[in-house]
């Protein structure tokens, strides 16, 4: 594997559209659930164990080479909110564009042909990791990190939170993030044997509900 390729893919400046999404942080800030570094950390911890774990499992399975159509259906089944499904497919399309230009590979072309309207972002992430020569565990790390990195950056913009405090939150979450990625990668191996039902299916109803509400706001800074 190339450790540098992992850095390129995980870099927040990788041009795949993530900067316009808050991962639910904008709705949580409005509701008062995120108001300082401690509440941001609690939010991120919850998201990491739910949406983060699910995304990491899908990404690891895709990086392992499992069937992307089945994985995309599994992602749909794990994403009850229509707003979040739409956001995931849009981000998947945006990531696929960046990935095809960055790591040209037949499997990325095949994915684009199979999903003209976009596949779920974690599935695209896994196939991208594979094309970049990365391992399933690497893909899981990127997905898990994105699940908390997005809200942390968004909160800096939304609350004017001290950016050093936000990076401190991410650093404190690192050990649990490693554990989530390991769990996701193990689940991906199980899914190769038992099918996508073996992948994590943790849910966070409040994230789903607030995503639906957020999508209807007339004035907002982030797309989701």
């Amino acid at each position, binding site marked *: 594997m190339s450790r540098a390729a992992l850095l390129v893919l995980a870099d927040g400046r990788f041009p795949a559209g993530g900067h316009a999404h808050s991962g639910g942080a904008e709705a949580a800030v409005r509701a008062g659930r995120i108001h300082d570094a401690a509440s941001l950390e609690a939010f991120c911890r919850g998201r990491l164990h739910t949406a983060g774990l699910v995304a990491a499992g899908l990404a690891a399975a895709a990086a392992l080479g499992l069937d992307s159509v089945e994985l995309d259906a599994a992602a749909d089944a794990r994403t009850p909110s229509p707003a979040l499904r739409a956001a995931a497919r849009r981000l998947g399309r945006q990531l696929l*564009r960046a990935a095809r230009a960055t790591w040209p590979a037949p499997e990325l072309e095949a994915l684009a042909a199979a999903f003209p309207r976009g596949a779920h972002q974690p599935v695209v992430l896994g196939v991208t990791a594979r094309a970049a020569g990365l391992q399933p565990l690497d893909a899981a790390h990127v997905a898990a990190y994105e699940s908390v990195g997005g809200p942390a950056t968004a909160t800096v913009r939304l609350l004017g939170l001290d950016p050093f405090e936000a990076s401190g939150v991410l650093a404190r979450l690192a050990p649990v993030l490693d554990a989530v990625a390991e769990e996701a990668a193990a689940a991906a191996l199980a899914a190769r044997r038992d099918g996508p039902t073996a992948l994590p299916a943790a849910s966070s109803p409040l994230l789903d509900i607030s995503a639906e509400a957020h999508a209807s706001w007339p004035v907002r800074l982030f797309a989701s």
Partner: protein
Amino acid sequence: MHLDHAVTYPHRHTHSAAPRRADGSRRALRIGLGGPVGSGKTATVAALCRALRAEYSMAVVTNDIYTREDAEFLLREAVLPPERIAAVETGACPHTAIRDDISANLEAVEELEDAFREQAPLDLVLVESGGDNLTATFSRGLVDAQIFVIDVAGGDDIPRKGGPGVTTADLLVVNKTDLAPYVGSDLDRMARDAAEQRAGLPVVFQSLREEDGVHTVARWVRERIAAWVAA
């Protein structure tokens, strides 16, 4: 488990920026309009739509900072049918969406192109940035040419201050010249400073309060389209 590619797979660009699409057809010319908040980007886009919509099949992408205000202004003014206007959300970073990570804007442009491919393929897509600062310019991966819009009320020292928008845009528009006497802006000085900063690139002074105030910019756009089609 991963594949190591023994043979290098052909490199492509952004899968959109190439002037011809996969089927060989020439895609629409993409022109970006950037500039500070309140300088008259949306008003210029509206005026261009009115001036050019009878000649060309055109569409607009707006990058509102936190609302759909600009898109809704264009809809309310009915400068184009609603299906020809798309809004992109920028996550509080308008310059990121037009320069560092153009993926959402490319999506919006391509969706508009796809929607009209059958009936009347687009000739022109205007991409309006969210109001930003003097350093915000468009990526060459997103637009083929860019217009930077400033106004006389923002201070007549802006051309002298320069910055990437003022110095490198393909066209610099100094808007609201009708306000110059009221805000004490020296148009001659702005013209001299702009000429000095721009090394021969064109500058247009306009007031959209005048009858057909956008005609010079509209002519520039027509010339760009003619050159694009002929290339």
